[in-house]
């Protein structure tokens, strides 16, 4: 990494259009015209070179894992390259049935938790966000401040009593401890994301509906919700990825192999595996990452927007 730090022309891009300030806002169009000098082309080539190198380094481990999962086991410890001589599907078939249940069982468990969490977050967070963004009420500032603080609260401070509470209700080894908190809007990050979004919706729309005699439930359901679909999509996608990857919660609440979600199933696999089954371990790891990758592929727009808008002042 250090060599890259030295060679990166960090602030150079600022002089991208030094001679032609008027062109600067649209460097894309200036490309290929005479205005795009040889020096600039060199700089741009170098930049692409660096980016391709850095990007390649970033995703090489992932690509190598995919390739290795399609190789005979012993090659995983000998072959750092990406070249495949033959397609070996046996890792996938043996990995799929390596644990007590077929791997699909754990994926279904994960899917149940994910769907419950998504519904919970969508309903509870959008309701709270509507109140914070549009309604005036006693102690609003205080409650809003508390809500923001809970975004930063470490999970560990509440985990022991939460565990005691849920085990007394008899919810250990059920999915409820993983879903019910989402139904109660405890992922305040999404409340905040939605508040931000609702604030951007013109108030005139609410006023018009109110003049037509709509109360808050109707304004919320028929005016605000349809307009905040992008925020709901961002929430859905983030909830999907975070819940699908969630390990700590599942580790604590799900100890019965019947109830395992994918992360704890993988953990059981990695604990039980001998040195010869890395191939099947890799294969199931790939299977577990696939849903996240697909969501990333199709929902990227919402992900990037979601991060950027909540991160910006």
């Amino acid at each position, binding site marked *: 990494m250090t060599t890259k730090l030295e060679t990166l*022309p960090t602030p150079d891009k600022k002089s991208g259009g030094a001679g032609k*300030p008027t062109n600067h806002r649209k460097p894309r169009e200036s490309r290929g015209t005479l205005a795009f000098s040889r020096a600039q082309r060199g700089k741009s080539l170098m930049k692409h070179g660096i980016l391709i190198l850095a*990007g390649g380094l970033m995703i090489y481990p992932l690509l190598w894992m995919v390739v290795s999962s399609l190789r005979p086991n012993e090659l995983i410890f000998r072959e750092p390259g990406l070249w495949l001589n033959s397609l070996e599907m046996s890792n996938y078939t043996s990995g799929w049935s390596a644990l007590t249940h077929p791997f699909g069982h754990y994926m279904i468990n994960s899917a149940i938790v994910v769907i419950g969490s998504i519904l919970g977050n969508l309903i509870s967070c959008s309701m709270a966000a509507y*109140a914070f963004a549009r309604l005036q009420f006693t102690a609003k500032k205080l409650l809003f401040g508390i809500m923001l603080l809970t975004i930063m609260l470490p999970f560990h401070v509440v985990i022991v009593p939460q565990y005691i509470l849920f085990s007394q209700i008899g919810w250990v080894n059920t999915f409820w401890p993983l879903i019910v908190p989402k139904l109660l809007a405890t992922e305040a990050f999404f409340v905040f994301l939605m508040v931000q979004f609702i604030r951007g919706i013109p108030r005139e729309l609410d006023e018009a509906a109110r003049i037509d005699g709509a109360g808050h439930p109707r304004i919320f359901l028929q005016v605000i919700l349809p307009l905040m679909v992008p925020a709901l999509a961002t929430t859905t996608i983030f909830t999907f990825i975070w819940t699908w990857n969630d390990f700590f919660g599942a580790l604590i609440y799900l100890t019965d192999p019947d109830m395992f979600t994918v992360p704890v199933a993988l953990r059981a696999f990695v604990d039980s595996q001998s040195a010869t089954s890395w191939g099947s371990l890799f294969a199931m790891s790939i299977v577990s990452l696939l849903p996240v990758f697909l969501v990333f592929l199709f929902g990227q727009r919402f992900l990037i927007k979601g991060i950027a808008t909540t991160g910006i002042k």
Partner: protein
Amino acid sequence: MSAISELSSITRRKGKATAAEKKANGRDNKAAYIFLLPWLVGLVAITIGPMIMSLYLSFTDYNLLQPPEWVGLENFTRMLSDARLHNSLGVTFTYVFVGVPLQLAVALLIALVLDKGLRGLPFYRSVFYLPSLLGGSVAVAILWKQIFGTTGLVNQVLAMFGIQGPGWISDPSTALGSIILLHVWTFGAPMIIFLAGLRQIPHMYYEAARVDGATTLQQFWRITLPMLSPIIFFNLVLQIIGSFQSFTQAFIVSGGNGGPSDSTMFFTLYLYQKGFGQFDMGYASAMAWVLLVIIGVFTAINFIASKYWVFYDD
């Protein structure tokens, strides 16, 4: 506005705005509290209630079977002489204060290269962003365990150059470094935030600086960094809070025991072992409160220090 700037603005303008808002809008207490009901129930039952409960438990001896027994400050005095706990604090601090600055530096660097209408930007952005989505998963931790193993990918590559690498995760002096590297690898999310921030810097600043003959390095120090400082601050606060709570990677890579020789025993991992391995719930609760106080102190330091280096344009 980010959550953080909202928080500081709430404390800045107390009362003044509320009077005006009150006049403009009638109150809808009933409707508001109905909309807030799920959140309020969660706040009381899932967050504040358990917080108070865990504060109480931290002064007790409790193993889930017998009722909690009040022991006063014993859990905290035990901590003072718990060498493994001190070690776990050291490991966690190293992880946070090496990993976070490194990750943010890489994120900023790549964001600067990616900024300004580079051809293929969406593609590059995706490539750099993907690891931050996958990095928290058990699957990637498993991959890391192999890559940095004795016969892992890293050593296979080194062997091509005739170098015999150590077993990175089985050697106590390099194990934590491998996990820090995993954290740096997930720089995509802060990078996206930096990219969005860079785009908000008005272009005329650079043009004016160039007219005055400022070099690109001067422009970076005098324009880019100050204008970006609120976003650097935001990333710093969030990443520090998040990294203190890091758990999955160390758990999987070390096989759940924080080894070798406790070199990857994160504070959270030790807390888990105490609470859910030995069912020493009183001690675990006390540890959780120590973690909360540590995170709170560092966040407060961050906010106080920000007055000296974060520049707000408005």
